[in-house]
């Protein structure tokens, strides 16, 4: 459940927090795109390091570290699956290239996770909703989206309680072989899903009784405005993107010695 902790918004008042959510979203998307376009480990490392100053500027290093640590399980799985599949299809040979390739894919995941972590850690759900609305996305979708985010920590909490309850009935989550461990999650998942469905029905009733959707035109108390800092950040991001794409498609990075 640590993974979700790293996505939870913490109130803060830094340069990064004050940026317009749309700016932050575009910057995250730029990092996301770059991480997908490049398959070179050194470049991904640069992309990763480029995020470090942002993390310190937003003072979320502790939460960020926690989310990266929480994502380590998935990272390991990505690494192991690639090694395994490559190893088998390669005729049971472990090559330097295969290890490098698997490391790159795992690292790419870390970069993606990190960029989203920064975005969610520094953007309040309210701002996010406003940004979506002002992008003319129908309010129902905005609401569904922000509600989903809003309920992530609630669900994480609930999952913990359910695990405790089932362990108290003798369920050993950490024992047994791989298949058994997967089966062990059925008693956790069913109450979690049933609870989520029940809650969403209740939420719908509660909202309707508070006249949700009674009026088509909505007004907002706060209006988002792009400021100079937003344009500066966007320009830097756009330059970075253009430069990287230019290198990628017209110049090319020097290849790593693959054997």
């Amino acid at each position, binding site marked *: 459940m640590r993974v979700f902790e790293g996505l939870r918004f913490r109130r803060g008042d830094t340069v990064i927090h004050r940026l317009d959510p749309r700016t932050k979203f575009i910057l995250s998307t730029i990092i996301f795109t770059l991480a997908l376009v490049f398959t070179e480990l050194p470049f991904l490392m640069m992309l990763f390091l480029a995020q470090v100053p942002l993390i310190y500027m937003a003072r979320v290093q502790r939460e960020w570290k926690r989310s990266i640590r929480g994502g380590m399980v998935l990272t390991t799985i990505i690494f192991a699956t690639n090694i395994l599949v490559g190893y088998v299809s390669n005729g049971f040979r472990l090559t330097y290239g295969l290890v490098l390739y698997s490391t790159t894919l795992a690292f790419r995941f870390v970069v993606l996770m990190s960029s989203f972590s920064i975005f969610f850690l520094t953007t309040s759900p309210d701002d996010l909703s406003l940004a979506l609305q002002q992008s003319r996305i129908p309010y129902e979708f905005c609401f569904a989206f922000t509600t989903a985010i809003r309920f992530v920590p609630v669900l994480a909490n*609930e999952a913990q*309680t*359910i695990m*405790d*309850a*089932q*362990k*108290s*009935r*003798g*369920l*050993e989550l*950490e024992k047994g072989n791989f298949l058994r461990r997967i089966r062990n999650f*059925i*008693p956790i998942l*069913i*109450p979690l899903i*049933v*609870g989520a469905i*029940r809650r969403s029905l209740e939420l719908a009733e509660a909202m309707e009784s508070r006249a949700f959707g009674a009026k088509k035109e909505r007004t907002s108390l706060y209006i988002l405005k792009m400021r100079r800092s937003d344009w500066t950040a966007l320009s830097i991001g756009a330059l970075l993107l253009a430069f990287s794409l230019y290198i990628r498609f017209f110049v090319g990075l020097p290849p790593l010695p693959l054997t």
Partner: protein
Amino acid sequence: MIEVRDLYYTYPSGVQAVSGVTVTIRDKEFVAIMGENGAGKSTLVKHFNGILKPTKGEVLVDGRPTTKASVAELSRDVGLVFQNPDHQLFSETVEEEIAFGLRNFGFGEKDIEERTAWVLSLLDLMRYRKASPFILSGGERKRVALASVLAWDPKVIVLDEPTIGQDYGQKEKLRQFVLEINEQGRSVVMVTHDVEFVADCSPRVIVMSKGRIVGDGEANEILTDAELLSRASIIPPQITQLLDQLSDLGLPRHVIDLHQAKTLLDRLVGVGVEG
């Protein structure tokens, strides 16, 4: 026997929920733990089967530190029934739900069948044997949860808020049932806000406030100590309040029992003397 020695517990969020609690739950004892919201009651009992491990201090179950055993191992002896049954029900039938714990603890199929039948009839759930636990009412689901723990017959049963969502009739049944399993030699610990229910059961009462134990004694002493109760946001039982307001008539304090109060009042108005 559960021994808690100088227990401190701080949640990862930084909230210190229990601060220096020392208490012993002896075998065959019946204990109610009361206190305001956030007093640390649930946090304390979650240490009894090792779900939470002490930040400082130690908890011993029959002499064995909870840090040295898994939750599943400890739960064989200390059965914890969670407040919300929806956090544990997942099977297709009530019967399967009961069998889940028994299978985890390695009971044989024949044993499972017998124990399931026993516990279902004990809790008045026999007619729902083949029903899905999800279609039952809140109170019934709560009883299924209780049955699913009681089935493996742990030495200590811990109930977190057992009376919530139960009507008066079910509460009365629950009371008799709890007294019965206690009489059969099991320890019962219940966390509750329901002061009338505690007064009816008359167990040993532990009062917690702000992570500490502020009172520990027999129900008739603790529940009539107005000053202590108000510290933990508890209102005395109505019988006690009534007798307190009639204190100028020379009625004794420490009364929480309806029948005892009736006898006293009867004597006061002279009915008991004649009758």
